[in-house]
């Protein structure tokens, strides 16, 4: 017998997903082996930019074990991949070029796919790549976003003069210019948010099977959004009925955004499976994942902030070049626009703000959403500029923040940048809690003492707000921000004859523990044991359409869809119980898994009894359908806006430039926490990715377009040994947007962290007159900053 559920919402229970995953019993894409399956390998361009003059596949084709070899020319009967989010479509010109399954005529970055080999095993396929002869005519290359827009730069696409994808802006330009003109103090800085490699532990891939008798495809994919992939691949790439494709995401080993998108391998495995009549499997190796799958960030911004000498900020201005790579990935234009520019003023009441963004093409891998997606770029920028401003006027950075915070009574708050109003917030308590935990005042004394001994300590604050629970469809969609569909979420809840509850959702976990948190909230709401709730997902056959898991939306949007279905189940259960108890439906109370007649709790039916009656349907009230089965499609009225303050303490070895991250305090507010353990896990991982951006990670291309950080020997994803213990705390400010008040916690850690570390480093180096430094703060960069300063002796 299972224990009667107490409160599951808020219980820090371990994830039910884990026993299977951590004992090696998971079923990831590469674990799947289908009868007759062939293995695909992709020949990729070694050039950053070149014309393909000739491809000779005959030697490869003749190799033993090779089943077939195809090039882009063979696949002209399918369309290029679609772009599903153009920047403010309709109002802004978007010069979109998306990739084909394989490149045709021109390659535009190192890794661009040129030919496909199918063979009986992976080794043969890989070996055969070396037997394909390609003649290239190299073209000029540009990898830097700034250089791409300069006159005379190599041009990537005919329809995109000066390599401009779009030019977008938000805020009030005239008002902002006026604020700067009238300002007592203004500071300007070039802020670079470097390119990052998302690096999910599992690389990406697809397996496609085609059934000629029914003309149906099944594709297993490492996807965060299988329903959307089904839509894009059928309606846009193949031009076949949506019903002819079933998409399944098996266990997915992390995504961080990289697995949201529609990729060429989905298309070429499908195309080839149909062509050769055998299932086709493609799994990237790590080098391919680094070269081809989407990258993140890569902004170069001229940022300006202005205000009064006593610390009031009066204006913010930013001019950003967002490097989007050689082609446009599925939702790339939306990231540096809607999810960046519109939240640029952060947690501050800034009366005048303006942001211009130019998306540009370069000879590099595509850039799209990566954990945080736009908001880390925004938060890094404003938080660095706040510190820069504070230093300029000689005020404590904590005080400047306090002085400019949006106040609790200001919510719902319109930031003037075209965003939906911030739902709720209370920024000062989070700051105070973080300052108290770190011991801010004492630290300042310690810092002074240490400096006298030649030790350089620094403290950095980051107060962030971000956008979760995306998004009301009419706002984000074509009438508004240009997203090509809706962004609601779905959930079906059924109570089976045995009283077992089955939840099927359009959201799906790839590391977030949604099976656990969704079961927790259903167990509580229905008053059934947690173990009796099964959560199904990730297969377009058998789950309702959903937009997928990203943008920290699954609790706030997917969870609310579940909550609403559960509410409907309870309503129906009450009606049926009234019928069973011959009572008035209006007098029924649902509590702890039972329905009873108000005032006489003994006259009751358990949910199991009600579900049994609903299932057998021997006696139902007039007009009631059998079965407890409710579906909800929930379109949120607003996004949610989690926030918090992170504080880092570092020590810099000024002789070498080495930075030691000594302490890290994070106070996050994601509203009520369904499962604090999972929230902490998300925050831990998130902070580590932000710390990694500040200290370690950078994707580096040389001027010929070669990815120099192309392996994990050169791209520094930190291990647990390279980060400190995190001291976590939280405040709870419920969101008024959804009935549970939840906001989202999947990306906050990443959004809040890089700038805390960078602010701390620059604080440590303030005696040397260092005012800003780009990320990552490698020892050499720090050392150079110290040595190029005037105050170094």
């Amino acid at each position, binding site marked *: 017998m299972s224990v009667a559920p107490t409160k599951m919402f808020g219980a820090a229970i371990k994830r039910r997903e884990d026993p299977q995953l951590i004992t090696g019993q998971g079923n990831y894409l590469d674990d799947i082996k289908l009868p007759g399956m062939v293995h695909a390998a992709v020949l990729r361009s070694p050039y950053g930019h070149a014309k393909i003059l000739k491809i000779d596949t005959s030697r490869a084709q003749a190799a033993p074990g090779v089943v077939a070899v195809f090039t882009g020319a063979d696949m002209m009967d399918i369309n290029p991949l679609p772009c599903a989010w153009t920047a403010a479509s309709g109002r802004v010109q978007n010069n979109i070029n998306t990739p084909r399954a394989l490149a045709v005529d021109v390659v535009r970055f190192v890794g661009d796919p040129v030919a496909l080999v199918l063979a009986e095993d*992976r*080794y043969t396929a*890989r*070996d055969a790549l070396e037997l394909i002869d390609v003649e290239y005519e190299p073209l000029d290359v540009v990898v830097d976003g700034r250089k791409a827009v300069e006159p005379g730069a190599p041009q990537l696409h005919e329809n995109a003069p000066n390599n401009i994808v779009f030019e977008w802006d938000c805020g009030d330009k005239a008002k902002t210019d006026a604020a700067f003109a009238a300002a007592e103090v203004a500071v300007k800085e070039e802020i670079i948010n470097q390119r990052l490699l998302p690096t999910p532990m599992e690389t990406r891939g697809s397996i496609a099977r085609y059934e000629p008798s029914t003309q149906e495809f099944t594709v297993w994919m490492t996807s965060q959004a299988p329903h959307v992939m089904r839509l894009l691949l059928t309606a846009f790439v193949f031009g076949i009925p949506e019903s002819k494709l079933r998409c399944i995401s098996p266990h997915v080993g992390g995504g961080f955004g990289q697995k949201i998108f529609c990729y060429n391998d989905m298309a070429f495995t499908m195309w080839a499976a149909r062509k050769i009549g055998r299932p086709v499997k493609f799994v990237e*190796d*790590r*080098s391919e994942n680094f070269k081809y799958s989407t990258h993140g960030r890569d902004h170069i911004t001229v940022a300006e902030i202005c205000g009064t000498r006593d610390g009031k900020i009066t204006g913010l201005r930013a001019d950003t070049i967002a490097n989007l790579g050689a082609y446009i990935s599925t939702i790339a234009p939306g990231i540096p626009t809607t999810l960046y520019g519109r939240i640029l003023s952060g947690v501050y009441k800034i009366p005048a703000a303006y942001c211009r963004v130019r998306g540009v093409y370069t000879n590099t891998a595509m850039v799209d959403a990566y954990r945080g997606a736009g908001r880390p770029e925004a938060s890094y920028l404003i938080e660095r500029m706040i510190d820069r401003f504070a230093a300029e006027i000689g005020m404590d950075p904590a005080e400047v923040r306090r002085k400019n915070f949006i106040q609790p009574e200001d919510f719902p708050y319109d930031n003037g940048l075209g965003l939906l109003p911030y739902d709720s917030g209370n920024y000062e308590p989070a700051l105070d809690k973080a300052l108290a935990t770190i011991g801010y005042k004492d630290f300042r004394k310690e810092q002074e003492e240490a400096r006298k001994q030649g030790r350089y300590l620094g403290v950095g604050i980051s107060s962030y707000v971000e956008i979760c629970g995306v998004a009301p469809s009419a706002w984000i969609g074509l009438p508004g921000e240009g997203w090509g569909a809706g962004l609601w979420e779905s959930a079906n809840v059924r109570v089976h004859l045995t009283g077992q509850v089955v939840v099927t959702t359009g959201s799906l976990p790839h590391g977030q523990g949604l099976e656990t948190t969704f079961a927790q909230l259903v167990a509580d709401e229905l008053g059934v044991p947690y173990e009796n709730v099964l959560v199904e997902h990730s297969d377009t056959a058998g789950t309702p359409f959903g937009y997928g898991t990203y943008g920290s939306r699954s609790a706030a949007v997917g969870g609310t869809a579940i909550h609403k279905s559960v509410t409907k189940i309870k309503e129906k259960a009450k009606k049926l119980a009234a019928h069973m108890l011959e009572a008035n439906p209006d007098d029924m109370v649902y509590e702890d898994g039972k329905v009873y007649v108000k005032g006489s709790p003994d006259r009751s039916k358990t949910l199991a009894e009600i579900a049994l009656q609903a299932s057998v349907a021997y006696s139902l009230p007039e007009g009631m359908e059998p079965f407890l089965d409710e579906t909800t499609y929930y379109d949120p009225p607003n996004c949610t806006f989690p926030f918090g303050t992170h504080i880092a303490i570092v020590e810099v070895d000024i*002789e*070498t430039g*080495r930075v030691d991250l000594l302490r890290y305090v994070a106070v996050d507010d994601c509203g009520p926490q369904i499962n604090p353990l999972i929230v902490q896990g998300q925050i831990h991982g998130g902070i580590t990715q932000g710390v990694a951006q500040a*200290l*370690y990670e*950078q994707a*580096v291309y040389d001027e010929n377009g070669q990815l*120099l*950080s192309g*392996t*994990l*020997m*050169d*791209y*520094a*994803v*930190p291990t647990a040994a*390279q980060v400190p213990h995190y001291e976590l705390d939280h405040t709870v400010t419920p969101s008024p947007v959804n009935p549970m008040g939840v906001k989202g916690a999947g990306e906050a850690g990443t959004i809040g962290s890089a700038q805390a570390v960078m602010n701390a480093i620059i604080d440590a180096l303030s005696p040397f007159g260092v005012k800003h430094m780009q990320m990552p703060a*490698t*020892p*050499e960069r720090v*050392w*150079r900053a110290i040595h190029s300063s005037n105050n170094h002796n």
Partner: protein
Amino acid sequence: MIPSAFEYYAANSVDEALKLLAEHGDEAKILAGGHSLLPAMKLRLAAPTVLIDINPIAELRSINVGDKVTIGAMTTYASLLNSAELKAALPVIAEAVDQIGDPQVRNRGTIGGALAHADPAADLPAVILALGGTLTAQGPEGTREISIDDFFVDMLTTSLEPNELLTTITLPKMGAGEGASYVKMVQPASGYAIVGAAAWVKLNADGTVAAARVAITGAGPKPTRLEEVENALVGGASSEEAVTAASEAVSDELELLGDIHASEDYRRAMVKVYTRRAILKAIKAAS
């Protein structure tokens, strides 16, 4: 990440390994711990068509501490780390090995492989240079000894002949008044050295430096002795000032490399810093 095809042979004795090497010539590679060779094969930077696995050769796994220390080429990092006898005779080995890779790497990687591979950023080469080791190689013509000073020729190149096997490494024990140390700036992705410095010093009773050997790794195309620094140290005081001054003696001619992790200029500056730190630590160990 998929190597090209190769044949695999397991050698049960040094003779058998040498025979296989002679038979397969340039096509063949010795497989020791595999932690340098296999990653290179997976990236197809190396594509030997024959692998000769010398893991079964038990006689190559040994640590003997007598008048000198002799270590079999196939001795793993983990064994070096766990030998109390070795720790007593040459504590710097454990100090350095502890900074190599992670437990998996230390469980498989071997001292012989680390030296024979001659990775410009590997740790032990600098340490063995500073200790003044002698290597024993066995080939078809028999056995010969190679001074560590003559061993590293260039990036990934040693004076071992393709048909030779490195069998043992012989090192002097730490004597009275001697101390050694290894310090390293870690490249955060690979864990290898951006700059690593090893120092061995012998102090006179009055605290002046009687002898010194200093070597660096990570900074240039091969692990290298810093003879100018050694010369500047010997005969001088073992004070921080003297050591700092000696560390500045690093030749401007010294060939160094730059990459995405650290430029040549920065490495040059760090060679001085880490050299100083290593010497000071060695002096502390000596006194």
